[in-house]
């Protein structure tokens, strides 16, 4: 896999089917539904336990707004990922082009996916910092790899977008 910036887009080329599939998994991975730990992390409390009234108002007015915002980001990413649609054979050496304009949506969707996966698997800080962990021998290992792969993409987008 190669990643570079070409004018107004980020180009992820020479994608093998495995990494292409991981990219296609971003929108689904970002969805916290059905996992209370992930829901709790994505929609965390705005106070440190006090201010019950404020928390109730937050749940009523702010949370739906945040939910919409996160959904919009994943929908944008899903639309970009349509470039990778096709059978497994056609995914070999595919190229994904991400326009720089919706890069903020990509940052958000990647972050959501990483947080949701980490919350679902209850990864510890030590596990998350073990970047040399290999090989992938379990579903948990795969999820950890996914978190790190998405993190790598996030870093690249951040650097290229000069945030």
């Amino acid at each position, binding site marked *: 896999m190669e990643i570079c910036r070409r004018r107004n887009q980020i180009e992820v080329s020479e994608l093998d089917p495995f990494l292409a599939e991981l990219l296609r998994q971003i929108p689904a991975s970002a969805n916290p539904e059905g996992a209370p730990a992930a829901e709790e992390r994505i929609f965390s409390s705005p106070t440190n336990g006090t201010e019950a009234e404020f928390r109730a108002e937050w749940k009523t007015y702010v949370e739906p707004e945040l939910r919409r915002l996160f959904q919009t980001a994943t929908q944008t990413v899903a639309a970009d990922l349509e470039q990778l649609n096709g059978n497994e054979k056609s995914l070999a050496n595919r190229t994904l082009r991400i326009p720089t304009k919706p890069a903020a949506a990509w940052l*958000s969707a990647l972050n959501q996916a990483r947080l949701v996966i980490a919350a679902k698997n209850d990864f510890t800080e030590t596990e998350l910092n073990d970047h040399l962990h290999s090989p992938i021998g379990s579903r948990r290992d795969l999820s950890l790899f996914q978190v790190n792969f998405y993190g790598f993409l*996030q870093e690249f987008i951040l650097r290229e977008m000069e945030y």
Partner: protein
Amino acid sequence: MRGMRPGSQIFLELFRPPIGEEWPEILRSAQDDNFVTRRSRLESGAFPRFELRATYVSIFPMNAEPLCAEVVGSLIAEIVLPRSAAPSTVGAPTIEEETRAEEALDLPWYVVVHNDPVNLMSYVTMVFQRVFGYPRDKAEKHMLEVHHRGRSILWSGMREPAELYVQQLHSYLLLATLEKPS
């Protein structure tokens, strides 16, 4: 300027000279200037609007009062003072204590960001720059404080903007809380 005339007319009535006497010169000129002549001039369109002149304002304390105090007293009693058969029910005035809005007395609220092992350091720095407009150095300092100490106070001040900051930080998926100093 509308509304000056009725008050002025009352004023001149108060200083009407006793029967058989003539108006003092200064009142005559005031009357003439302010009402009679001026009204006729206004009606004839000679002046676009009525204006109160300084001489009219200044004669009350200096010249007119000693001339007809009895007339003044009777007219004031008749025109101005309200009369009532019932005993006064007005009690002593209640002095209300001034109260300030809660926010004016509030201690500043803190916007606190908590450590999160998943969020990337570069991402957190970027969010601080975008949300608070901090320069990179300051944003990095706060990011490192979050990383090493577990939390950092990013901003303090009035509650309303603090709530908005917390909301913005949540939209970037950071663990942020609104806190009041204990």
